[in-house]
């Protein structure tokens, strides 16, 4: 009985000096895995506007809009659930899933990716680790 009272104290002490799990997120970036399905991206040169992606999308996140003389898919990122079916079903491999996951916007309209914006590749992660001092310098904030 005494052991069952003292053992947790010992366990807690033993964990005091272990490495922490915390990732200081906006400053430290974890690279997603290679297969990570982030925001889909359209390859404008390959897309023929067949509409299979629109047909397969379970959430109706994609719809066709007219661009010039071609109909191209447009993404509503607010409805996308990153299942990747559009990329799987695309017959010309024009739709690919990128590793981009920082998709927050200030309003709903900015969530809509028109074909031009849809086809822009996301910025690359550098995944560098910054110290807190450097962060302050970089971001000019004291409170993260």
């Amino acid at each position, binding site marked *: 009985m005494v052991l069952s009272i003292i053992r*947790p104290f010992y*366990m807690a002490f033993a*964990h005091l000096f272990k490495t922490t799990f915390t990732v200081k997120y906006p400053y430290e970036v974890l690279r997603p895995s290679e*297969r*990570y*399905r982030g925001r889909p991206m359209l390859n404008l040169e390959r897309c023929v506007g067949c509409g299979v992606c629109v047909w397969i999308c*379970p959430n109706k996140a994609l719809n066709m809009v007219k661009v010039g003389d071609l109909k191209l898919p447009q993404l509503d990122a607010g409805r996308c*659930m990153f*299942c990747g*079916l559009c990329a799987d079903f695309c017959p010309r491999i024009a739709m690919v899933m990128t590793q981009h996951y920082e998709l927050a916007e200030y309003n709903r309209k900015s969530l809509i990716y028109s074909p031009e914006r849809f086809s822009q590749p996301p910025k690359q992660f550098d995944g560098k680790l910054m110290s807190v001092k450097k962060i302050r310098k970089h971001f000019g904030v004291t409170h993260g």
Partner: protein
Amino acid sequence: MKVRWGPQHPVSGQWSFFLDVDADVVVGMEPDVGYTHRGIEKVAENRTYIQDVPIVERACIFDAGNFVFGYVEAVEELMGIEVPERAKFIRVIVGEMSRIASHLYWLCLMSIAVGLETMLMWPVNDRELFLDLLEMLTGIRLTYSYFIPGGVRYDLPAGFREETERRMDYFERRLKDYYKMLYLNRTFQMRTKDVGVLKQADAIRMSVVGPNLRGSGVKIDVRKDEPYAAYDQIDFTVPTESEGDTYARSLVRFHEMEQSIFIIREALKKIPSGQIRVNVSPSVPKGEVYSRVESARGELGYYIVSDGGNKPYRLKMSAPSFRSLLSLPQIMRGVPMADVPTLYMSLDLIPLDVDR
């Protein structure tokens, strides 16, 4: 005194209880569910079979692997196709990882219900091990959309086996820590032993599922009763406890995590090479099927009626938390109010899963 427990309460989740409290003793309890009712069964009727894959797993994202598992098993039985052996083993691996992740999440909730924050943080951290592995394999951390009728979407990535072995070894050591910190903790035993006893006869009468049932001494596990995928080729044991109290249910889940590690190791050892997917036609023959899998919370049933089209005519999801919910008012009668969160968490009820 009537106390409304939730939906704005530290441990209530997305539902509420109407508690009838006499001094400090709960004399009656009525769950008020439906805050997250999304009508997934109805939505699924309006989507094709392949589109339903991401839909059904959102019924319970903590255990998405097993929720899709049941669905694809049902659809494949309707289609009458046999999945390649390699896909079966990969499915078992994903299902067991999902089970471990779900049980770890439960462990957090259970420890926060008894008031031990340390054991809230450790399992959350170690859950990342498996979420990362699943991300490496499936591309997404929680809702994988990885199983499709006919097989799985991707093959095992390079280095997956070694990474899994490494993390399993670490996780086994962590499980020992958990056992020492929580299960052997005197105060935890005081809080959970002989609390919320669900007798064997009652458990069957109420038809509770999964670890709750096995904690009452009933040895029902779909993986053994009706082996699906590759579970018939792996010789694991089904942990049971006879007491039926909160501690027994907790212990069953702990031993299930150990068994899951064993199953993943065996599956990685026995996995054959070959195809991972067979091509299937989008439309499904007329008929009906009831498919069962053992999810982390217990038996999950899919009843699918097909009229021969490419959409299910009716999809009924018999969710595990919904079935265990019936026993909650029973075991909450006559306990002090301090045990309400403990009992609620001991059954591992997830409101998302109850409502669907």
